C-alpha cells in the first residue's frame, strides 16, 4: 500500500512541478536582453506554426475537394477553392458500402489490436528489459523478424492456417495477426525504455516485498504510461489504415473495414477524387479522435521525481 501512495504522490508532485522557467541569478543578469528574448519566442512559435500549417496543407486540399460537386471539380480543378457545397458524394458512398458497419468493424479491430498489442509488448518488454533474461539480444533480433518480413511473405501460410482453423474471414484472426506483428515493434520500444529504468525504484519495491506482478502493475506501468499510450495510439492508427491484411483475410462485407471500403472508390480504371477525399477524411476522424484523446496523457506523469 505504501508503494502505491508513494508512487502516485511522487507523480503528482512531478506533474505539478513541471515549471514555467524559474530564473536564477545567472538569468537575472540577462534581464536586459529580455525584450529581445521575448521576440525570439514569438519568432520560433511563428516558424513552427508555419511548418505545421504547411504540413497540414494536403489535408486542406483534401477537405476543399471533399465538399465540391463533381461539376465544380471538373470546371475548376482540384486546386481551386470550392464554389459549391455538396455532401451527396459522401452520403451515397456511406449508404453504398454501409460505412457505419465498416467503421464499427475498424474500431473493434483497431481497438483490439491497440490493447492486445500493447499488453503483449508490455509483458515481453518486462521480461526482456527488466528481467534481463539471458540471450535477450538474440530474442530481440528474433522478434524483429516480425517487422522485417514483408507481409505478403507471411500471408499465404497464414491464409492456409486460417482456412484450416475456421478463422478465415473473422475479425479475430485479423486482431491476432496484427497484435503479434505490432507487438514486435512495441516490445522493442518498451524493452529499450525499460532497460534504462531506474534500478533503485525496482530494488526499493523488491525490498518492500512486492511480487513481480505488483512491480509491473504499480511501479513500471505508471512510470512508462506515456510511452504505453504512444504505443496504443500507434497501434490503433496503423491497424486502422491497414489495407492489406483485411483485404486478404476478410472476405465478407459485413466483416470488412473502413480502409478497404475506401478501395471501392478506386476501380481498375475509374476513381472519384472528390468522393475519395470526402470518404477518407471521414474515415480518419476516429483515428484522429483517438490520437487527440490520448495525447493529453502524453505529457502528464513525469517520471523523474519518483527517483526521490
Amino acid at each position, binding site marked *: 500500500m505504501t508503494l502505491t501512495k508513494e508512487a502516485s504522490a511522487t507523480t503528482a508532485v512531478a506533474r505539478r512541478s513541471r515549471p514555467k522557467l524559474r530564473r536564477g541569478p545567472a538569468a537575472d543578469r540577462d534581464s536586459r536582453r529580455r525584450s529581445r528574448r521575448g521576440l525570439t519566442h514569438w519568432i520560433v512559435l511563428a516558424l513552427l506554426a508555419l511548418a505545421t500549417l504547411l504540413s497540414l496543407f494536403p489535408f486542406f486540399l483534401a477537405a476543399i475537394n471533399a465538399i465540391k460537386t463533381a461539376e465544380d471539380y471538373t470546371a475548376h480543378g482540384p486546386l481551386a477553392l470550392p464554389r459549391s457545397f455538396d455532401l451527396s458524394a459522401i452520403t451515397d458512398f456511406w449508404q453504398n458500402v454501409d460505412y457505419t458497419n465498416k467503421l464499427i468493424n475498424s474500431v473493434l479491430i483497431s481497438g483490439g489490436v491497440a490493447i492486445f498489442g500493447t499488453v503483449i509488448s508490455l509483458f515481453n518488454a518486462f521480461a526482456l528489459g527488466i528481467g534481463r533474461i539471458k540471450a535477450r539480444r538474440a530474442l530481440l533480433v528474433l522478434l524483429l523478424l516480425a517487422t522485417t518480413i514483408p507481409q505478403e511473405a507471411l500471408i499465404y501460410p497464414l*491464409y492456409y492456417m486460417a482456412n484450416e482453423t475456421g478463422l478465415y474471414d473473422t*475479425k479475430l484472426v485479423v486482431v491476432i495477426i496484427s497484435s503479434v506483428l505490432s507487438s514486435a515493434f512495441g516490445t522493442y520500444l518498451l524493452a529499450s525504455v525499460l532497460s534504462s529504468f531506474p534500478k533503485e525504484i525496482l530494488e526499493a519495491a523488491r525490498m518492500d516485498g512486492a511480487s513481480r506482478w505488483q512491480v509491473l502493475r504499480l511501479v513500471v506501468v505508471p512510470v512508462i504510461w506515456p510511452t504505453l499510450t504512444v504505443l496504443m495510439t500507434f497501434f490503433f492508427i496503423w491497424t486502422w489504415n491497414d489495407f492489406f491484411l483485411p483485404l486478404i483475410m476478410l*472476405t465478407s*462485407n459485413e466483416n470488412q473495414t473502413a480502409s478497404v471500403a475506401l478501395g471501392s472508390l*478506386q476501380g481498375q480504371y475509374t*476513381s472519384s477524387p472528390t468522393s475519395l477525399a470526402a470518404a477518407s477524411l471521414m474515415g480518419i476522424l476516429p483515428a484522429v479522435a483517438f490520437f487527440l484523446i490520448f495525447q493529453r496523457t502524453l505529457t502528464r506523469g513525469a517520471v523523474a521525481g519518483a527517483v526521490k
Partner: protein
Amino acid sequence: MIMRTRLCRSLALAAAVPLVLAACGANGASGDGEKTFTVWWYEDAGNPQDAAWQDALEEFKAAHPDVKVHFERKVWQQIQDAGAMILNSNDAPDLLEYNKGNATAGAVASKGLLTDLSDEVSSRGWDEIAGSALTVGSYDSAGLMGPGKIYGVPSYGEYVGFYYNKDMFAANGVQVPTTMDELEAAFDAFKSKGITPLAESAGDYPAQHLLWGLSLANADQDWLKGYFGLAEPLDTSSDSPLTQAAETMADWSSQGYLDPKSSGLKAEDAWAQFRSGQAPITYAGTWMVNDFKDTITDFEWGQFLMPGSGLNPGSGGNIWVVPTKADSKDLAYDFIDLTMDQTRQDLMANAGGIALDADPSAISDPTGKMVNQTFSELAESDDLGLYGDWPVPNFYQVIQSNTQTLVAGSQTPEQFMEQLATAYDQVQSTVQ
C-alpha cells in the same frame, strides 16, 4: 489507486474484446435445407452494368421466391489480389464477376477453381449472344486465353477510341480524320494555335492504351494470335507493329501533340483536361463514356476510332465465373441467363453501357446508341483487338512504366522495346 483501476479497466476491456469479436466474426453459414444464392460484383453503384444486374436481381428474387438471395458489392482490388484465395476457400460465392486475363481468370481456371461452363454456354445460347466477345472467358489447360474451355461469360463489352470536342473542332476548322495523315494534320492544326491536342496521361494507364491502339492499326489477326499465344519471343524489329507504335508515340510527344509532361499526370488529370475543354481530343475507354455524358455540359462531344485501323482495342467485359466450390450452380446459371436476356441488355444500353446484343431499335439514349453500334460492328467483324498487357502477368506494370519514360523522352523506342522484350520473353520461354 488510480493506476490500478486504470490498468484493471484496460485488462477487463482487453478480455471482453475477443469475446465480442468472436461473436461478431462468425462467417455466414446458411441454415439447413434453405436454398441460398450468393452473388458478388464490383461494378460501381449506379453504372450501366450495375443498373442492369440489380434489375436482374429483382427478377431473380421474383422467379425464385424460396431462395435467400445474398448480394455483396466487392472492391476490385480484393478480387484482383485475393481472388484465388477466396475461390479456394469455403466462403466462395455461387457467382461472381471476375477480372478477365491470364493472370486472373486464366490462372484460377488452370488450377481447377472455376467450373467449366462450355455446356451451359451452348445449351443456353450464351455463345450466340456474346459472339466473338466470348474469347475473354475462354482458356486452355495452361490458363492462356484462347481456344479452350469456357470458364467465364461476359455480359457486356468495352472498347477504346478517340473522343473529341466537336465545338473546338468546328472553331478551328478541323474535320474528323479518316486516315492517320489526317489525324496528324488535325493535331498540327491545333498545335499551331498553341493548343496541345491530346489529353493524355503517361503516368497512368491511358498512354498504354494509346500505344496498343497504334499497334493494332498496323497489325493483323495473325500477329495478334502469335502475340497472345506467346508463340515466339517478342519481335522488336522495326517491322513489328509494337515498335512502330512506340516510334509514333515518341514522335507525337516530341512534336508536342501529346504533352511530354503527361508522364507526371494521373488518368483523372487527363480526363479533367478533356472535360474542361483544355484539350480537344482524348483516347479513352468506354468506361469513361458515362462520366463524359454526365459531366460535360459545356460542349458537344463525339467519337471516332483509330483512323484507318481494322483492329481496335476492346473486348468482352468482365466475366461471370462460377466457382468449383459453389453450392447453387443452377441458380448461378439462371442469373447469368437473366443478365444476358434482351431486357437487361437493352437496359444496359439505354443506361450508356455496351450490351453484347441489344436491340438497336430499343435504345433511345444517343450515347448508348453510339457505343453499342460501334461495339457490335467491331464484334461482328472480329476486330476486337483485346489489350496489349494480357499475354504476360504483370506486363501492365512493365508497359506502363516504360511508356512513361518513352513519352517523357528519356527513353528511345528501341530501349522501350528491349524492356518489353525482357519481360515478355522471360514468360514466353517457359511456355511450350
